[in-house]
């Protein structure tokens, strides 16, 4: 929920300096936006340019060619489920300052965000390897965090968690606590006010965070490479195919990854934009600031 009214550069210029500056800023802004947009889309263009239908057919018609897709989707769904269940309360507690030493918690999340995924993978070996105490505990319940589906999900959770937690925390922060207090004074239990007020108002932000986490999870590679070489998800499949047969055979899987990973973020984005329009500019509380 973007609570602050988004000041369009054009509008800003209009208000401050009048028409002439509008033009200059507008052109510069549009130009910059176009450059960034093209730069971001560059790799996609290259991907499409180098894809040949025959290569796609060859890559995808092999037996078990789509198994990595299924693996990736399943593992990412598990990772997201865990994140929603465990990350949402943490995000809420961070947003509402309900944690002792809040800076410490935030730093913890930031550390996992800043750590290169490869390093996370290496450290996970020390943490959950089969011969560590945690690894032995897992073995007791017939789980292993080394080259298993479970390991893949764990690696994806680690790569995606900071994106979800920070995004969700920002979403909750944008909901003014006063609104929750009003709901409770009007007779709602905590949980009911969360469901009726907090969640609907945070929903667009939560959707964005979830979409981001989804993209991170399904595209996770660094930590996956270290602790979950098997079973192949899409990124691992791309890597192995690249190593084994080369670029032409690997690119179709990159396309699949894109096609699978993209719809959720796009939907979330569209929904967020619509929600923003529906509740108007700067309306979390719906009051003028006196």
């Amino acid at each position, binding site marked *: 929920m973007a609570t602050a009214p988004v000041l369009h550069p054009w509008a800003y210029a209009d208000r401050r300096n009048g028409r002439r500056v509008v033009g200059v800023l507008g052109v510069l802004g549009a130009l910059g936006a176009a450059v960034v947009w093209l730069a971001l889309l560059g790799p996609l263009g290259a991907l499409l340019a180098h894809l040949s239908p025959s290569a796609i057919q*060859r*890559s995808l018609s*092999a037996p*078990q*060619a789509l198994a990595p897709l299924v693996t990736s989707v399943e593992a990412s769904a598990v990772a997201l489920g865990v994140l929603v269940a465990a990350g949402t309360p943490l995000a809420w507690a961070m947003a509402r300052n309900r944690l002792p030493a809040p800076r410490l918690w935030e730093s913890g999340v930031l550390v996992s965000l800043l750590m290169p995924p*490869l390093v996370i*993978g*290496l450290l996970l*070996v*020390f943490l959950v*390897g*089969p*011969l*560590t105490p945690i*690894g032995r505990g897992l073995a007791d319940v017939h789980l*292993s965090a*080394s*080259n*298993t589906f479970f390991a893949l999900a764990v690696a994806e959770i680690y790569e995606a968690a900071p994106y979800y937690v920070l995004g969700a925390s920002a979403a909750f922060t944008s909901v003014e606590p006063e609104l929750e207090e009003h709901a409770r004074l009007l007779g709602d239990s905590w949980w009911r006010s969360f469901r009726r007020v907090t969640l609907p108002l945070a929903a667009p932000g939560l959707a964005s965070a979830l979409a981001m986490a989804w993209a991170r999870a399904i595209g996770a590679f660094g930590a996956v*490479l*270290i*602790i979950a*070489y*098997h*079973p*192949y998800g899409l990124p691992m*499949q791309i890597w*192995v*195919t*690249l*190593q*084994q*047969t*080369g*670029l*032409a*055979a690997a690119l179709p899987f990159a396309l699949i990854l894109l096609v699978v990973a993209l719809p959720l973020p796009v939907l979330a984005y569209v929904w967020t934009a619509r929600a923003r329009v529906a509740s108007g500019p700067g309306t979390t509380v719906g009051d003028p600031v006196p």
Partner: protein
Amino acid sequence: MAAAVAAAGVSLSLVAFSTVASASASASASASASVSGGRHAAAHRAGTADVAFAGSLLAVDNEVVGPAFERATGYGYTGRGGGSIGLSHDIGAGEISPGVFESVGAAPIAALEPQFTRWYVRFASSPLVLAYNPHGPDAAVFRAAAQGRGSLAAVFKAMARPGFLLGRTNPATDPQGQAFVMMVELAQRYLHLPAPIVDQILGAGATTGSGGNPSQIFAETALDSHLEAGQLDAASAFLSQAVQLHLAYVRLPAAIDFGDPADAAHYASAHLVVPAATGPEAVVHGAPLVVDVATLRQPSATKADVSASDAFVAYLLSSAGRRAYAKEGFTLLPNTLFGPRSAVPVRVRRELRRVR
């Protein structure tokens, strides 16, 4: 200090007539080399040797041979490691354009002939060993074998135990991963072990196309860290890796360690159906794990870069380069040329003559 200043001065003037990227890269590299190298530093020269090498050569090339080459010749050096087969694919597709390619096994270089090169020189081999976890449950068996007290057969029997944590690299992408599977095959015959032990160690169908037990397969980079973290009982390794990383390891007899070209015919008796996720299945026969090097013709390379590449291979094949390889755990072989002598750059040819 004076040398450093002089080198910096030279490098500034070089920018004018070389490509900006390579010149500035070599300038900074040579400047730092001349600072650390002191009075032994050779005069700076234009040109950078861009070297692609098998991942197992990363330490020896980037940390020993590369810097020594820069100091000795004044050329710049940049190195990149990767799976030999993957690198060969990247080079063939034009994704990367190194001037030198060092591969484990000749096949990745041969795949680039004749477009990029028509020759290669074999100068070392990289025998397989069994690295093991000194704190693992079967460490005593491994340690006894490593010290020559115990039997090697006991080691393989230990590895066949259910729940034994074995690590190896992907036979689909890595020559070491392929060699390891065939090494187990050879060991079964060599040590007169029961035939099913191969599948017991590697997982069902490891030699016939399934790839075996997938939980044993790790990325090259991940394998060492799992072993170092004590999360595997044993793992496939090159002798050089074991030496560089100070791993505990068991040396294998030459007849099964893929390190001796004299045993090539014997190695070839083992074979493996490469597991294929996407590509066509292929049968691979055992071959010595030798280190081959060649210069590659790159249309984009400047004349200076070409001479730097030639100089790097010449340095590699000189006694200084070979000593470095020996020290890092490689087995030296006589420099042996494969391909027409006429295709070999003069400087490299001179080095061949000198060692012979």
